[in-house]
């Protein structure tokens, strides 16, 4: 079936199978930051933003995004031009194997679009559904708080 949606700021018009998971479509379109961990909504590795809200792309089929805006980590920043939130993750040592990182950054991004002054508990609540097997979470919380500080200082774009 025909599908049109915006992916990282670019309009896409394509044919999809009605039952194709959004996760597979995004990876097929080259968005390899979107990971499949569990495939059942539990781990958060497949998180993307849909009209600015974090969702699980493994629990959606492609047609559900008809007419909507999807953002993956690829749309936030690049290796050469990282977003301050990505820089904060690097600076705070919040990335180890990196498998959870795209999802973590996107849920943190959603949080920081709503508040620039989150408490550590707000951050823990925001990332509660995103599992990390490496870091122990402390440095991830530190990174989000650091990024929030930079946002308050006007260092976000």
């Amino acid at each position: 079936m025909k599908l049109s949606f915006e992916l990282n700021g670019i309009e896409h018009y394509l044919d999809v199978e009605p039952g194709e998971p959004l996760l597979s479509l995004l990876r097929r379109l080259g968005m390899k930051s979107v990971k499949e961990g569990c495939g059942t909504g539990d781990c958060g590795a497949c998180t993307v933003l849909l009209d600015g809200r974090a969702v699980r792309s493994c629990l959606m089929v492609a047609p559900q995004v008809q007419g909507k805006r999807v953002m993956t980590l690829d749309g936030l920043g690049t290796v050469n031009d990282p977003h301050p939130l990505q820089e904060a993750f690097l600076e705070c040592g919040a990335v180890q194997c990196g498998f959870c990182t795209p999802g973590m950054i996107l849920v943190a991004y959603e949080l920081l679009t709503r508040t620039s002054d989150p408490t550590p508990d707000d951050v823990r609540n925001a990332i509660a559904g995103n599992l990390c097997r490496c870091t122990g979470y402390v440095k991830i919380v530190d990174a989000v708080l650091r990024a929030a500080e930079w946002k308050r200082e006007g260092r976000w774009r």
Partner: protein
Amino acid sequence: MRLTGIRRFHFARDAEEALSLLAAYDGGAALLAGGVDLLRSPRGDIEGVIDITRIGLSYVRESRGGLAIGATTTLTEILASAAAPAYAGGLLASALSQVAAPPLRNMATLGGALVSAHPWADIPTVLVALGAEVRWQGEKVGKAPVEELYGTAFRGLFRRAVALEVVLPPWEGAFAHEKISRTRYDIALLNACCGLGLDGEEIRWARVAVGARPNRGERLPWAEEALIGRKPGGELWNEVQRLVESRVEVGDDRRAGAAWRRRTAGVLVRRALARAAQRGET
């Protein structure tokens, strides 16, 4: 995603179209709201998926002192609504923010939670405690208290009907929800939702429901009776805690044992009563 047999996807324009599509598939289609449950389900009989999120059922309205919430309203939309925070002493704000995590709350709808009605879920316990009513459209338009519906084969009903709206009645007083889980993201090992209305020094009405026992949330009428007409306070909460421990029906599952659930049910009810009373004062 485990639902792998999808051949066709439809955006329904209204409830009538959703119903006629359901009828045309003769059991081979399902309504899709947030999809959090449906797309996880390993059902092999679903060929058609009918998206009902664009049929105007996403809203939270004040209604005769209570709330009317459209079935496809997401948990996040309820939390962000202007009307929900003040309702029942802030119950929805505290209970719904303990459901799963933000990305799932951004997807999951109230109607989907009501229809899925997982025995471990918090939302059915809250709806039963509040005396919520659901309105639906099937062959005919229908409505029933959620508590009554859960005593029937309601899943069969919603394979042929669209839940339209959940109506939460007005309560003069406050409710509180308690959930105990292994982590803040995990599902409940046990949950309790209690409400109290005070008349000066006396409890005028009381609602007590316990869920994830591991069975679905149910009211404990004998605990409610033990509260009515009594003076609120620590002594009464302790008495009701002991009563719940002695009478609540609980069982074992792989998550927790019956003995632990029995003891903990009393504790959760005591805490919820104390918190509801405190909220009612402010």
